[in-house]
Each structure stands twice: as C-alpha cells, then as structure tokens.
C-alpha cells in the first residue's frame, strides 16, 4: 500500500470519527472506561511519534547522533508548555537543532 493509499484510508476513517457521534453513533454514551482509553490515546500517540522521531530508526546506543533532534524536541516542548501557540517554540527548537548540527 502506497503513502497515497494510506492517506486516503486515514481520510476515510477520520471522516467516520468526525461524523460518528453527530450523525449515527452517540459517543457520549460510551462507557467511562472506554472514553478514558480514548483520552490516553492522544498523548500516547503524539509522544510515541516524538520518541520515534528522536530515535530516527536508530538503536539506543546510536542516539548520540540524534542529540540535535533530542534538544530540539526538549526546547520546543518546554517553550510550548509555557507559551500559547507553537510557532515561536518550533522556531526556537529548530534553531537549536540547526546550531548543534553545524557544530
């Protein structure tokens, strides 16, 4: 399956999620435990993507080469946690990554 096919599938599933509780499935009636699992899925998925992105497909022992990306993520996260919006934190994080890469 190509990236295009995956994107089309994700688009279809996303539309189902968007329309489900409005048009045919009352999600508010889901059991509390199920809703809690949905709550956990979002930070877990985002954090896993950050972790996988920092590792960049390398083994833990090779992480030294990924230090610019690691520091980029830390700087961005700390600034985004304290500020509204992500534009400035992302710019600051990228500046750190590019500076460390250039060293």
């Amino acid at each position, binding site marked *: 399956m190509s*990236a*295009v096919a995956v994107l089309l599938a994700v688009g279809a*599933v996303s539309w189902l999620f968007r329309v489900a509780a409005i048009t045919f499935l009352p999600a508010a009636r889901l059991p509390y435990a199920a809703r809690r699992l949905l709550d956990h899925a979002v930070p877990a*998925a985002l954090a896993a993507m950050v972790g*996988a992105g920092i590792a960049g497909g390398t083994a833990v022992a090779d992480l030294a080469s990924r230090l610019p990306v690691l520091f*980029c*993520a830390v700087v*961005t996260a700390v600034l985004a946690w304290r500020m509204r919006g992500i534009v400035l934190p992302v710019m600051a994080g990228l500046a750190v990554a590019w500076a460390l890469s250039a060293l």
Partner: protein
Amino acid sequence: MNRPSSLDNSVAAAVRDTLPVAASIAPLALVIGATAARSGVPVLADVVGAALVFAGAAHLAVLTTLAAGAAALTALAAAVLINIRLLLYSASIEPRFRDQPRWFRWLGPALLIDQTYLMVLARDDLDDPARFRRYWSCAGGLLLGCWVTTVALGSVLGPLLPSGLPLDAAAVAVLAGMLAPRLRAWRPAVVALSALLAAAAVPGGVGLLVGIVAGVTVGALLDRRPS
C-alpha cells in the same frame, strides 16, 4: 430584516477568528508538504491527502512512519489512533449539529479539527443554528483552504531546500509543540513519558506502535489506582 447584518456578523467573526489560527498551523503544513516531497509523494497526491485527512499530526505520522520503513498498516494504525480524539470532539459538539439540516450533519463534521472545535467552544453567540452553520462553514472552509495551499507550497519548496537541513527535526519539533500543552496534569504526562521512552527504545517503525500501546496501557493502569 436583519438577515444581511447577521450574515455579515457571523462571516466577519469567522474570518477574524480564523486568520491567526491559520497562521499558527502554517508551519506544520509546510513541514508536511516538504516531508512528502522528500519522501517522493507526488504534490497532487499529497494535496488531495491533506484535504481528505485535514489533520496534521495524523498526516505527518503516515509520512514519517512509512519513511522509517514501517509497514503501511502500522502507519494507518498510528494515524487512526492519533485521530481517535475526533470521536470525542464529535460527541462534545453534537448539540450544535442537532438542529441542522441533514446535509450539514453529514458534510459539516468534515471540518472538525482541534482548531475549529476550540474556536466554537470559545464563542457563546452561536446558539442560532443558521448562525452556527455560517460561522462553521466559513471558519472551517477558510482553514481548509489555507491548510491545503500551505501543504502544496511546502511540497513545491521542499525539494529546493538544502539536503543538510534536518527536516525530521522540524517534524519532531512540531509534534513536541503539540504534545507539551496537553501535559499540564500528571497522568497524561506519565502516559506520554511512557510512550516516548518505549517508542525511542525500539528501533524501526515498530517503535511507534509499541510506544502507543505502552502509553495507553500505563494510562489504563493509572485509572485503576484510587485517586
């Protein structure tokens, strides 16, 4: 008699609210376009994908997961898990759609993203169904147009960027920026830390799924503890 004024008000309010939001999501759209171009995804295909998915983190997950060598089903699963929050938004915003025409109940939710959801929550003048419909269509449509245009721009500019630029750092930065504000309570912070460490510890595309499963499992275990 006051219909034109009401129309102007809701449309003007939507435009006023949307422009800064569109500016805030532009960096992610540029990164997605550039990442897709670097991964060999055709511009037109990525733009169509951007319009259909209309969710940056899930779109980026597909591109980066496939680029890391993971299977297509892994990429699909990761994106679906990321977008599962749309179910919650859908349930939360359902009262706004209850008195809408059938066509709008089916098509309107296509514009449901983090930003449109939060924009509607922040307004207390959308009780009238027609006013809500105009606001939602205008704000969501404008955001969708800006999103698709910026992704296309990123796709065109991506190949022109020097190869030494760490675009993967840009993607990680955007995701970290989206994650951090969600971690103000300790439970999601522990869930996120577990997922991050697990995903980083397992090399290759499998790490992503391992991290998500680890995070959700830790969250479920925390829920079983008495608060």
